[in-house]
């Protein structure tokens, strides 16, 4: 789960991670009030969306008068911001953050995440603050420093000192950097953070370390013990179909194609998308209905897939294990009746009682249900069905 920059900074403040003074605004008038509250000088107005690349896309602007703050607020609020991470439609800016300007002497990058290879937390830092860390990693790998934090000892001063000296920080900065890094680690650890990024972390002309930007995402599996984070979730930033699927314990991801997919199991669901692509089609979604596909979640799955108007055929691919295919078949029929599906539904049932399941489907009298013998056959039939309908949109 993601949160906004201003929310991340609120948490930072609590933990003693220094941030610039700032206020959130949902309306241009409030943006002006926020600027007045901060006081004279320069202000930075920042669009709050769950995507990176805001600066380059015009979502972060500097103002030197309250009139200018208001103008920028009007330009940003309620309009889509397109960054390299939002996709072509962009994301609507519903809130902006007004911050005091900071005199920057030096910019760094500091991040914390799981190193999957080491299976431990890694602290990553670089002198190339403000740049995408992936870009730094590919262009200047020598400018990145990593330290692994062993869970037995947790964060220690030497972790941060190793980084500070490797980055060539002057000796007089090292202790202040260690305090900053320790505070950030405490946030990371206490809140079950999946990724914490401060980019840039700036050293000001007065010699302070400040989190100029803040990005945090959280481990979904740990949200049950993070009520404070759950409470600030901004649902307007998320795909409505994905939210709805989540409430029914379905895993759904919207894609660009026209063949809807409903599969039991995440691996098989991905493999189904891959096979659709392999035979020349484009999957419209990823949908894992779980190991035990039943009538209720199959029906819900159909409903969610059908909300995507690009979908011209649905491929249901079930490998029945503990779940019997005859039950799944009955579930599909029931779901097809409830949701009143008019587009072709290609069904491949394999595993326990698959023959009985196929018999139920072919004897159902529903003409838009097509049975398939295996994964490849099902993918081919689905792509064909979706393609035909595309040119025949009466």
């Amino acid at each position: 789960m993601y949160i906004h920059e201003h929310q991340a900074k609120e948490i930072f403040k609590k933990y003693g991670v220094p941030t610039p003074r700032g206020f959130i605004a949902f309306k241009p008038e409030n943006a002006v009030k926020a600027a007045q509250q901060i006081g004279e000088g320069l202000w930075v107005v920042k669009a709050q969306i769950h995507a990176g690349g805001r600066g380059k896309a015009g979502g972060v602007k500097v103002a030197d008068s309250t009139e200018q703050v208001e103008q920028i607020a009007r330009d940003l609020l309620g309009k889509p911001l397109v960054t390299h991470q939002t996709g072509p439609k962009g994301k609507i800016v519903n809130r902006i953050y007004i911050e005091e300007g900071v005199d920057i002497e030096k910019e760094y990058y500091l991040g914390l995440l799981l190193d999957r290879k080491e299976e431990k937390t890694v602290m990553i830092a670089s002198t190339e603050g403000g740049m995408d860390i992936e870009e730094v990693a590919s262009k200047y790998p020598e400018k990145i420093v990593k330290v692994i934090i062993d869970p037995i000892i947790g964060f220690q001063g030497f972790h941060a000192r190793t980084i500070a000296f490797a980055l060539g920080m002057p000796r007089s900065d090292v202790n202040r950097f260690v305090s900053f890094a320790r505070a950030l680690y405490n946030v990371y650890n206490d809140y079950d953070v999946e990724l914490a990024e401060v980019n840039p972390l700036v050293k000001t002309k007065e010699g302070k370390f400040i989190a100029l930007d803040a990005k945090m995402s959280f481990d979904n599996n740990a949200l049950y013990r993070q009520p404070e984070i759950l409470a600030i979730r901004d649902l307007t930033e998320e795909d409505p179909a994905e939210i709805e699927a989540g409430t029914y314990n379905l895993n759904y991801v919207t894609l660009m194609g026209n063949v809807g997919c409903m599969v039991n199991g995440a691996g098989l669901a991905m493999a189904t998308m891959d096979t659709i692509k392999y035979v020349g089609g484009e999957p419209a979604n990823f949908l894992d209905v779980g190991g035990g596909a039943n009538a209720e979640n199959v029906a819900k799955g159909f409903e969610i897939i059908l909300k995507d108007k690009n979908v011209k055929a649905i491929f249901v691919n079930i490998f029945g294990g503990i779940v019997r295919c005859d039950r799944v078949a009955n579930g599909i029929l029931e779901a097809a009746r409830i949701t009143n599906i008019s587009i072709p539904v290609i069904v491949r049932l394999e595993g326990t009682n698959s023959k009985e399941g196929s018999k139920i489907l072919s004897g159902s009298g529903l003409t838009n249900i097509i049975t398939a013998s295996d994964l490849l056959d099902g993918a081919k039939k689905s792509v064909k069905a979706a393609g035909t309908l595309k040119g025949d949109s009466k």
Partner: protein
Amino acid sequence: MSILADRNTKVIVQGMTGKEGTFHTSQCIEYGTNIVGGVTPGKGGTKHLDRPVFNTVREAVDATGADASLIFVPSSFVSDAIMEATEEGIKIIVTITEGAPIRDMIYAKSYVKSMQTKLIGPNCPGIITPGECKMGIMPGYVFKRGHIGLISKSGTLTYEASNQIVMAGLGISTAVGIGGDPIIGMGFIELLKEFQQDRDTDAVVMIGEIGGTLEVEAAHYIKNNFNKPIVAFIAGQTAPKGKRMGHAGAIIAGGKGTAKEKMDALTEAGVSVAKTPSEIGEKISELIKKQNV
């Protein structure tokens, strides 16, 4: 022979009295797995599924001599359960539960690594040595006995692969679902080492997916150390970047962990890489035929 589990494996089930635990334990018993007891704190001294229930793993091991544990406890107790079984000298732990927090697993995995325990999972379908031992939630009949080792990050895709192997007239020595979490117990390399030693395994099918580096590391290992034929499939060739595809670990993060980089590394290591799961059966038969010539 086989790997990790056979008819002599004595299994306890942590979380046996819960809904999932009860259902799947009874399925395992029906399959013939030697389930010797269960552990549910507070229910010690009772019986469930005609097996004794203990309060702690220590009591269970003392009373039954169990050397394996199958874990079904809720996700917030997973790391606790893994560490308890590890502490008590359990040799093989299979964790089915999905949804364990990463922070918990960092500790659990670190502890497991420091001991002699072998961990499978979490978030996996388990292990099956056909005809001998099923420690998991897979439909047993899909797995017929034979000489192909199977290692997979995915549940239903494991069934799909086994089904094809069986249809091709071959069978499974042991199938291991390693799970789709960012931190798991044994990975591809550790299991390839087991299959390399196993005289009953002639070839291996490995099924990976997007996210992490296990498959690429396995490719480097295979190139210099593994001499049995391998067919691999990597799920998620069409997965978008930065989106989590069902499994907690199935995510292309920072442009890393794509299906392509894994497929390329495996191909370069001499592995026969299938583009769709439909090719698995065909490819493994080809390799076995070549081997027999």
